[in-house]
């Protein structure tokens, strides 16, 4: 048997079960909607705004800076693996790379990009 066979069977069963439980209530139940039932909550205060919360903008700022410096770190790995083979040339390249990133980092710092406000 193909080694992925069980996975395929599992996926099929999971899909069938999900579809079954999604549509079964609609087939079996008797729908008698009325305004009270249609509300999002059947008790308590009526919802007035969107349920999903809003993220303050500063989260986006942090995310933005994180992405850049995260990938910078990722770029160091291939060099680290081949560091001995690349010799001085590789080292110089990386020093230049890190200096460029460092100027950017200092610039972000000075302009207040790292402050939690």
């Amino acid at each position, binding site marked *: 048997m193909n080694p992925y066979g069980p996975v395929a069977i599992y996926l099929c069963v999971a899909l069938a079960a999900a579809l079954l439980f999604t549509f079964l209530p609609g087939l079996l139940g008797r729908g008698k909607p009325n305004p009270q039932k249609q509300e999002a909550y059947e008790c308590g205060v009526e919802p007035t705004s969107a349920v999903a919360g809003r993220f303050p903008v500063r989260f986006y700022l942090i995310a933005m800076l994180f992405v850049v410096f995260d990938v910078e770190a990722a770029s160091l790995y291939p060099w680290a693996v*081949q560091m*001995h*083979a*690349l*010799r001085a*040339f*590789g080292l110089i390249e990386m020093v230049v790379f890190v200096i*460029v990133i460092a*100027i*950017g980092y*200092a*610039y972000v710092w*000075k302009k207040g990009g790292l402050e939690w406000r």
Partner: protein
Amino acid sequence: MTNVIANPYTSADWNVLYPLGIVALGALAVLFVDLVSKKHAPKWLTLALAGLSVIGAGVVCAQQYGQNYDAFGGGFLLGGFAVVMQELVLVAALGTLALYATLGDEERMAGTIALLLWSTCGAMLMAGAANLMTIFLGLELLSLALYCLCGLRENAIAREAALKYLILSSTASGFLLYGMALLFGSTGSVALAAIAQAPVAGNPMLWIGCALFLVGLAFKLSLVPFHAWSPDVYEGAPLPVTAFMSVATKVGALAVLARFVDAAVPSAGAEKLLLPLWIIAGISMVAGNLGMLAQHDLKRLLAFSGIAQVGYIVAALAGGGALGLRYALFYLIAYTFMNLGAFAVATAISTQAEEGSRLANYHGLAQRRPFLAAAMTFFMLALAGMPPTAGFVGKILILSANVGAGYAWLAGLLILGTAISLYAYAKIIRAMYVRDEHAHAREAHPVSPLAWASAAVCAAVLLVLTFYPLAPSNVIPLVR
């Protein structure tokens, strides 16, 4: 693990990148000065540093003229073509710096100028790029910096324009990149030249790859089915950025397109592969000029004009002959100066609060500032392709290239497009020279020396270029 990977590049490879390196270092220097100054770097110092690095790069680049060298294993082809294209990008950067000297605000000058210089680097890299990696790197360096530059104005329209530009242009990059991936898959090499050697028959991946690659490029050039972004983005972006964008992105993308056409032409299916490109160039000439008729904003008008002008230049490449390429390059040089000149005039009549891009601002300009009105008239005539200008010479050259290569229908569309465009350009000229009854109510704009100077220089260069056909025809030896 003691095997040593030797550095495969010699100093000859690095020499090729000197102009690029000077501009990139200039950008870093600008940021560094801003970093060490107390609050922010003075405007004049930022602009002086940037101007020096651009001029320095231009001088170094000019010294490379006449050398031919395949740097980095064919990643960057140094030659007459690359040098001329790089110089055009540098001219655009210098012109934009002059506009920033007039319009920019001091507080965020350093960041803005650094982005502008990096964008310049991207376009310069594209000018010589001959493999998929350098093309992609140059394109993204150019575009990413431009997205930021577009949004650098405290105004909702500018930011929405930046968002729109970011999303649409990145999508186009996605198409281009997927096309590159398929090209790499079907040829087994990242060199553009490998396209010509790949078997064409029964190789759908090559076809799809080329098609996606061309769609991405057509978007960056804003050729007609993919042009919808450019008027909105041009209108929203700050005036100097629009000026830079209208020249540098087009120079960069055209350099890549020319190399692609050059690489694809020897292949067996080139006729079929490139025909859609000539067709959209033809449509762009007519549709771009038609779009100009309804505009009331100089930036939008020049966006549509740019669509048509790029149509002319791409059409000149039809047939893939060396002559067509040379004429395309000539027209591109002329286009650079016409556009920069027009934007310099628009800057000269701008104030800090309001950019002088509404056409209403040009009413009666001839009474208030006769020099600016005359210069603008000259640039409009050049864009329209009327006789005493380089635009006219360029169009005649393109017509002859088209007819010579057997694409007479493209020549016909060019004439049709030109006829349509005359009305739109004439509208501006008429507005400037009409007697303005509210003249006393309007103040003459203060003289802004750098904007005036760049308008004058652009006009002078266009006049000189007009006599190009009289000069020895090997002025631009396009070996590659």
